[in-house]
């Protein structure tokens, strides 16, 4: 199970992703790195508004920024996405054993009422 800090980071990642503009920014960055100006282009938004979104993504570790003073291009860092995958996977054994029990229970029900379906 993840530690409290990992959980915090995960919820930060989830929160960062819970916004269609930010997801669109990530989709753009998945194809190539881009400057803030380039990222702002497809959106009817001011530069400061876009910058704010990028800062959220940066804090969540989903975007890294270059150091060139003028452009500071943004790039995608997919590592937090892998953490989400790991987080999702921790539920696998829980669900697998639940579904084992469901399977067992359904068999019992059908055996108790063999006429409910034709063949077994």
């Amino acid at each position: 199970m993840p530690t409290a800090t990992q959980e915090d980071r995960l919820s930060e990642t989830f929160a960062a992703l819970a916004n269609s503009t930010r997801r669109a920014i990530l989709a753009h960055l998945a194809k190539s790195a881009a400057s803030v100006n380039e990222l702002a282009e497809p959106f009817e938004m001011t530069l400061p508004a876009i910058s704010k979104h990028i800062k959220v993504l940066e804090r969540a570790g989903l975007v890294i920024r270059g150091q060139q003073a003028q452009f500071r291009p943004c790039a995608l860092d997919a590592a937090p996405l892998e953490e989400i995958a790991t987080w999702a996977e921790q539920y696998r054994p829980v669900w697998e054993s639940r579904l084992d029990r469901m399977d067992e229970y359904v068999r019992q029900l059908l055996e108790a009422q063999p006429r409910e379906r034709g063949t077994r």
Partner: protein
Amino acid sequence: MTDENASPALVIERIFDAPAGLIWQMWTRPEHFKSWYGPEGAAIPVAKLDVRVGGTRFVCLEMPSPHGPMRMWFTGEYKEVVDNQRLVYTESISDEHGNIPTTSDTPAPDSHPITTEVRVELQDLGGRTKMVLTHAGIPEDSPGAIGWAMALDKLAAHAEAPDVR
């Protein structure tokens, strides 16, 4: 993603040797749901399943512990209900009144700020049933966790192979 199976959502596929109508009842009828859902040794004293879009789901899990039975409460809402075919609901840890602690509250050590969404899809294979279960995390204010997770899945694939469009 480095691992091609890595997905922001958990996906499990199973085939049951039972008709879809019966598998549907496993999810929607409290008396059936209680029989399989809890972990081994647990009981489900409460399962209110108001199975309709916008309806509330409220489940209590009771587990034995050295200090006596420990109860955990979960609540959520049904998002999609298509009889014998598709069920989508959200789930959050709640208190015994069904109140979800908000992320702005001081997080208790075992509080879980993340809401999850569960999608169950059933396909009738003529007496047998294929079930695809998808479980994804969402922040509370986000609609449609699983669509969201799938979009991310594509995004991650893009990130790995940007030249393969």
